[in-house]
């Protein structure tokens, strides 16, 4: 006789088998003709440039975290907005405290300068007048990877 956990165990077993059987069957059936192009990393049809281990600016994470907080806030506030009138002033106060704390967090980020985005300053190409037109060189634009 299966207990509740036994059913879950059977479920896990089937899930593992499903993956293993599918992979092995595909390995047996499919033709294997690798070429150089096929083995390359797929970048929307372009040839891959450089290493995939690119360092991302840490600000992206800060922005992502702030986004996450306010995203979750909406999820919590919509049900509150639907029912708070039934609870009278206390219902309003509970939501207000929540919003105040969120506002404090927002003020903290703002004041500490986490919302300032350090923008790159590209150096525009400068034409030097003394040089003749034939060997006019445009300095390569410096691209800062942010």
């Amino acid at each position, binding site marked *: 006789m299966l207990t509740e956990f036994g059913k879950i165990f059977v479920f896990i077993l089937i899930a593992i088998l499903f993956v293993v059987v599918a992979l092995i069957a595909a390995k047996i059936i499919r033709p294997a003709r690798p070429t150089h192009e096929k083995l390359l990393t797929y970048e929307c049809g372009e040839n891959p440039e450089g290493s995939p281990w690119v360092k991302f600016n840490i600000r992206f994470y800060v922005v992502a975290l702030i986004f996450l907080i306010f995203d979750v806030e909406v999820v919590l506030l919509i049900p509150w907005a639907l029912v708070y009138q039934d609870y009278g002033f206390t219902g309003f106060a509970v939501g207000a405290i929540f919003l105040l*704390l969120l506002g*404090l967090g927002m003020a903290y980020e703002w*004041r500490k300068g986490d919302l300032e985005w350090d923008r790159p300053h590209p150096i525009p190409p400068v034409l030097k007048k003394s040089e003749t037109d034939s060997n006019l060189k445009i300095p390569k634009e410096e691209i800062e990877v942010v």
Partner: protein
Amino acid sequence: MEAPLKYIFDSIQYLKPEVAVSIFLAILVTVDLVLGKKNKQVLPYIALAGLVITGYFVTQQFGTSAFASVQHNIGNFGLIAVDSFGNYFKLIIILSSIFIVLFSISSIEIKQVFDRHGEYYSLIFGMMLGMMLMVSSADLILIYLSIELVSLSSYVLAGFTKQSLRNSEASLKYIIYGGTASGIMLFGISILYGIMGTTNLYAINTILQNGAFQPLALIISCILIFTGFGFKISAAPFHFWTPDVYEGAPIAITAYLSIASKAAGFALLIRFIKVTFIQTIGEDGYWQLLGVIDWKSFLIMISILTMTLGNFSALWQDNLKRMLAYSSIAHAGYMLLGLAVFSDQGVMAILIYFLIYLFMNLGAFFVVMLIANKIGSEEIDEYDGIAYKTPLLAVSLAVFLISLTGLPPTAGFIAKLYLFIALVDAKMIAVAIIALLNTVVSLYYYIRVLKHMFLTKPKVEGERITIGIADTVVLLAMLIPIFLFGLYFTPIVNFAKNSIALLGF
């Protein structure tokens, strides 16, 4: 419609300390934002005011025993159990927080990062809130949540001075170990919930009393949950983070981790085992546990392993902070024995031990911090002949270390005495002898520091180390109780005796 909200507002009268901590956390952040980059000196005093007010609310709560945020659908059990036992530990946490704030005012390490003092004190308050919920939570969900609140704050605090390499190392090691431990614990909680169908400890106890459960899954889940508690109290197989984190973190934070976080972990462990597995309490105060898991042998095994490992590893340490880390592991082992007795007497011994351990361990860390402020190192060789440069600090460190060993007339003796009385009273003579032998081992590495301080000639003649009046007062505030409680210990014994009552038992 009104009902759920009413329960929350009804509980606020029992949650005054927690509410006070939360409000002061918000105040600290706001003041920090308003002040900007200057005038950060006011922050520790706001923190101290908050701690005193919180302490007042906790003392007001003594004697009450009630559930806060009650869930009526599962037999009127609540998320938070407010009782004297929890309040005793809350008081220990607040007391250690006060000392930590005082330490931080004079710590060079913390002074260096003056631009982030607002975060520092608000993180301490966040950690305190987590610990105060930890000591009184009676629900697996709240247990997990509060442990995470404590852990996340302490990960950041352990690596608070970003410039220092060993700070960052400590923080990273802590977060990796901590993440693993809490993951394992969460797995255990999920299994326990799967068996019992409820997360409330009191409700689980009712189900266990009726005897409908699967023993094997229950044992596995409880051992997994113990991993999380063992990590917090640094019990033996889960202690590996302790030396590295204690050595790397700023000394004020190391002291905080060794007292407050450990006290909260112990309170949680005692509450978890007692509330979940108790059957009856005998006339003589001995607990009759349900025969599901042999907690007694399990805890005795863990505690002997913990203290032996802690004491023997401490023998080789040349860094004083690292040595104190191993000694704190060993002390966790002694205190686990108090729980393994499974009697009210054993719990009383733990309560006495913690109050005394607070003064002696914080004191030792404070002296190490003051000396490190001047000579910039905690290596034991740097302490050669330091008694001639600063007699007061050397003598106080000697007193704290002797008290940690447990020699009379210091308070450490009283702490150990009550523990051994509880052990002998429960006829656990063999265990008591092992603990006693461990104490003898610990004598060696504590006295070794004294030898370096008083008997060894310094390699280079250094200048005298002087400390300010404020530091002297803080030092005396920890030094005097060591002698006071060593000679006149009736008040703390009575205080502990009145605080052993858990809600419902």
